[in-house]
Each structure stands twice: as structure tokens, then as C-alpha cells.
């Protein structure tokens, strides 16, 4: 935490932390406390009067079917993104770990989607699946599935944003799975081979269990990613539509606040999201403690 030796006391350390702390207070803590305060207020439609209403905004939210739907939807979306992306990445990592030649080349070819902005990824996938022009939609057409239109069909819209979000995250998951597998001592695998376990069996009985800390860690990271960082994808591809079929919580905060101008509700949603982030962060740090023991 602190060095055994340090410099004699002076104002210097305060000057050193000042920029970071100033930005933190002005742009993080102050707005967050504003959100907290706002969440307890009710403003009329014209912004003329505000009234302190305690937790009314929260109770209103939790009795609002739309909000609860958004909650469920976010969960389904996040879990789908995590599962799709992690399984694809795990498969590729297992294969990359197996081949002796070309591991680095494959890695190079697989990591770059990380660098693509979510909104850009959204645009790419939207183009591929565009109902009139898109190449994938054309293939669907040829296969006889002519009704594809993510602009009208909510489920199809969901599939599309999940794919775009998962695609972008494959790189990250691949890197961590590969690193996790390379950290497993080769002697363990060799011992299992001598015991007569074939490659498939070795994977399920040795490699996969030993990877479980990595898997859990990635699950949390992917959930956080899907919860908060996919705003760009949703906004660029579906705008939460059609008929709110892809409206996840982060998008709803934005939409209710900026478009709908329902400040109290938007603030209350912010506070709920903060609670979720705090929960996920705590889980993540718990995990790190476990990793240290491991």
C-alpha cells in the first residue's frame, strides 16, 4: 500500500493528487450525488415546479411493467452476449492452444475486433443484415427465409444486437482463455494423457475445471460490458426498437432523460444502475481475492 521509505511531509502530494481528485469531484461525485438527489424529486411536465417525493420514483419504476421488461431484457441480452461470445472464444482458444504452428498468427487475426467501437460494430452488422441490401439477408432469402427484417421483428433485432455485441467481445475472451490455458502446467495434461485420457476427456476433466476462475472472471466482465458498453450498438442499430424490443436499461436511462425529459425517473434509473455496477464491482474484486489464493 505504501512504501516503507517515503518523502518528508510537504504540500507536494496534495498538488499531485489535485488534478485527479478535482476531476473526480466535479465530473463523477457531484453528478452522481445530483442523480441521487434528483431521484427523490418529481418535476412537472413543464419543469416549472419540483416536489420532494422520497422514493416515489423508485416505487413507480418497479411497478412499471415497461421498466421491469427492460430489466429482464437487459438480463437476457447480457447473458446471451456473454454465452455466445465466451463459447466462440473458448472454442477458438482451445484450438489455438492445440496447434503448435501459427498460434500467434491466429491471435493477431482474432484480437483486432476489440479495437472496433461498439457503434461501428453496430453499423457493420446492420449493413450485413440490412433487409433490402444486406448480404446475410440475401442468403436468408435464398434459403427461403424471406421475411427477415430486424426493423420490424423484435426477436430478430435482439439477435442482431447480440451478435454484434458478442462479435466485438470475442477478442477479449479469446485472449484471456488462451492465457488461462497456457498457464496450466503442461505436466498435468501429460499426466492425464499417460492415464489414458483422450483430448476431449482431458479438456472436460482437467482443462475446463482449471479454467473456471478465468471463466467466472470473464462472465462478470462480459456482463458489465453488455450492461454498459453496448449503448453504442443499440443506439446505432435499433434505437431500442422495434417497439422497445431491444431497449436495455442503459438505453432507457438515456431515452427517458434526454428524449423523454422525465428527469426524476431517469435519475432513479441511474441510481439503480449504480447499485448494479457496485454489485458487479464487488463480485469482481471478490474474485480477485480468490485468484490470489488460487
Amino acid at each position, binding site marked *: *500500500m*505504501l*512504501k*516503507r*521509505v*517515503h*518523502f518528508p*511531509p*510537504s504540500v*507536494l502530494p*496534495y498538488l*499531485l*493528487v489535485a488534478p*485527479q481528485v478535482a*476531476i*473526480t469531484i*466535479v*465530473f*463523477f*461525485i*457531484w453528478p452522481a450525488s445530483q*442523480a441521487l438527489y434528483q431521484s427523490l424529486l418529481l418535476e412537472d411536465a413543464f419543469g416549472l415546479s419540483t416536489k420532494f417525493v422520497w422514493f416515489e420514483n423508485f416505487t413507480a419504476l418497479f411497478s412499471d411493467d415497461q421498466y421491469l421488461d427492460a430489466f429482464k431484457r437487459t438480463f437476457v441480452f447480457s447473458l446471451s452476449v456473454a454465452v455466445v461470445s465466451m463459447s*466462440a472464444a473458448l472454442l*477458438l482458444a482451445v*484450438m489455438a492452444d*492445440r*496447434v503448435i504452428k*501459427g498460434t500467434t498468427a491466429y*491471435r493477431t487475426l*482474432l*484480437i*483486432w475486433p*476489440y*479495437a472496433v*467501437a461498439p*457503434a*461501428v460494430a453496430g*453499423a*457493420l452488422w446492420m*449493413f*450485413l443484415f440490412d433487409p433490402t441490401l444486406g*448480404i446475410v439477408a*440475401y442468403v436468408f432469402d435464398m434459403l427461403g427465409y424471406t421475411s427477415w427484417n430486424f426493423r420490424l421483428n423484435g426477436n430478430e433485432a435482439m439477435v442482431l444486437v447480440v451478435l454484434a455485441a458478442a462479435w466485438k467481445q470475442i477478442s477479449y475472451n479469446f485472449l484471456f482463455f488462451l492465457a488461462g490455458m497456457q498457464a496450466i502446467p503442461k505436466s498435468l495434461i501429460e499426466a492425464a*494423457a499417460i492415464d489414458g485420457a483422450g*483430448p476431449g476427456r*482431458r479438456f472436460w476433466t482437467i482443462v475446463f475445471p482449471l479454467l473456471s476462475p478465468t471463466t467466472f472472471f470473464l462472465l462478470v466482465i462480459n456482463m458489465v460490458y453488455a450492461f454498459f*458498453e453496448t449503448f*453504442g450498438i443499440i443506439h*446505432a442499430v435499433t434505437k431500442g426498437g422495434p417497439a422497445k424490443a431491444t431497449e436495455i436499461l*442503459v438505453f432507457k*436511462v*438515456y431515452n427517458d*432523460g*434526454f428524449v423523454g425529459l422525465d428527469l426524476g425517473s431517469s*435519475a432513479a434509473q*441511474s441510481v439503480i444502475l*449504480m447499485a448494479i*455496477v457496485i454489485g458487479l*464491482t464487488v463480485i469482481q474484486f471478490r474474485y*480477485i481475492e480468490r485468484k490470489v489464493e488460487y
Partner: protein
Amino acid sequence: MVENRPLLTLFSHLVLILGVLVVAFPIWITFVASSHDAVRMTQVPLPLLPGSHFFDNLWQALTEGVGNVKEVSVGTMLLNSLAMALMISIGKIAISLLSAYAIVYFRFPFRMGFFWMIFITLMLPVEVRILPTFKVVADLGMLNNYWGLSIPLIASATATFMFRQVFLTIPDELLEAARIDGAGPLRFFADILVPMSRTNIAALFVIMFIYGWNQYLWPLLITQDKDMYTIVMSIKQMTEASEESPEWHMIMMTTLLAMIPPVVVVVTMQKLFVKGLTETEK
């Protein structure tokens, strides 16, 4: 690999190649689309092989602008994005280095208080406090300029933690040797600590550059003035053509241009990138 099974190895390569193709397919299509003209891009099926208009399209995008964002060229947007990404990444690194240095090497009242304050930023992503943060920035007159685009994003708990971790692994004796050599706190920081952390700084720079470049929601809120548009946020605007159908060849050219800088950074600085990813997750 433990035993020699050529078939299994072949299969592994096949899966990997397939994976690479699936991952790369959207990019290929982007490239192909950006190399055709407007007419070809309205005929189904769309082409799978590149056309001959790549450089025309490139020139047009860089100098003119695309679709309903005609007022500002993609070249300007690229410069805006570059400025924002650089300010964010350099700003994050600078203030995180300084605060990590203070927290590790000085004992002073409220040290832990500051530490936790910085830690809290980890739990407050911009997405969850959009409205009040926007209001602060507006009140400070920081809308529609580079300061507003970058400064609210440069506080960084992850970077501070990473540097703290790095500093903690630097042996105490180096500070003692430096003190005997007569180096004061600022000298020690500039001559010893920063040069010794340079690979970590570079790794962090790669990650933070990508983070900055890929910002979407924040520039969307802060820039109403089209001259300040960043490339990533404007693509969305372009696809929302109101009257005519979107000019896909130009949009895809823009998309390509939006991807190239961060992708080049990741691929050319792969080692630093991997180091940065793994170290900021501690």
C-alpha cells in the same frame, strides 16, 4: 500438444480458419462496399469482391463528407477523433501517474480518503450519470469543444491502480539510492519512476487510445456543433438518412476509416496491448 494426431491438428486449423473468416467477414464486406460506386450499392446481391472506386470514395469522404452529414468532412472528424483520443489517453496517464505517485510515496493526511475517492470512479461509468454530468459540462461552458470531450473522461481508477501496482514493485532501495544521489521528489519521479514505468505507460496508452477513440455516447451529448463531430458518433447520423436511402459505399468508407486507427494500434502494438489488457484488469 501431447500426442501426435494429425487429423485433430488439421481439424483445429480448420476451426481456427473458419473463426478468423467469421470474425473478418464483416470487415471484408466493409472494404468491398467502400470500393464500389453508389449505383452498384443499390443492386441486390451486393458485391463480394472489391470494385474500382476505393480511392475516389476515400478522397470524397476525406474532403467532402457523407450523406446527411455533408457540412463536415470525414477528414475533420478523423482529426476530432484523434484529438479526443490523444487528450483522453495522455490526460489519463498523466493524472494517474501523479496521483499514484502521491499515494505510494508520500504519507499525508487523507491519503486513503483520496485513494477511495478515485476508486469510486470505477463504479460510476458515464452511462449511469449521463444527465447530471451533461449539466455540469454545460454549466462550465465546455460543450462543443475538445475540453468538454476529453476532461470529464480522464479520471481513471484503473490507470491509477495499475501505476500504484507498478510503483509498489520498484525496490525501496532505488528511492534510497536516489536520495543519496541528491534527487528530490520531482526529480526522482521524472528521472527514475517515469522511465522505469515506460512499458506500462505505453501499454496503458494503447488501451486508453482505443477507449478514447471509440467513445460514442459522450461526444453524442457534448457536440451539437457539427464541426466537433467525431467519426465514431457520426456514422450513426449517416445511416439515418431521412429522405433518400443511405449511401452505403460512403458510410462503409467512413466505417473503415473509423476502424483503421485503433485496429492498426492494436495489431502493431500487440504485445503492449495484451500487457495493457491483462494489467488493467488487476
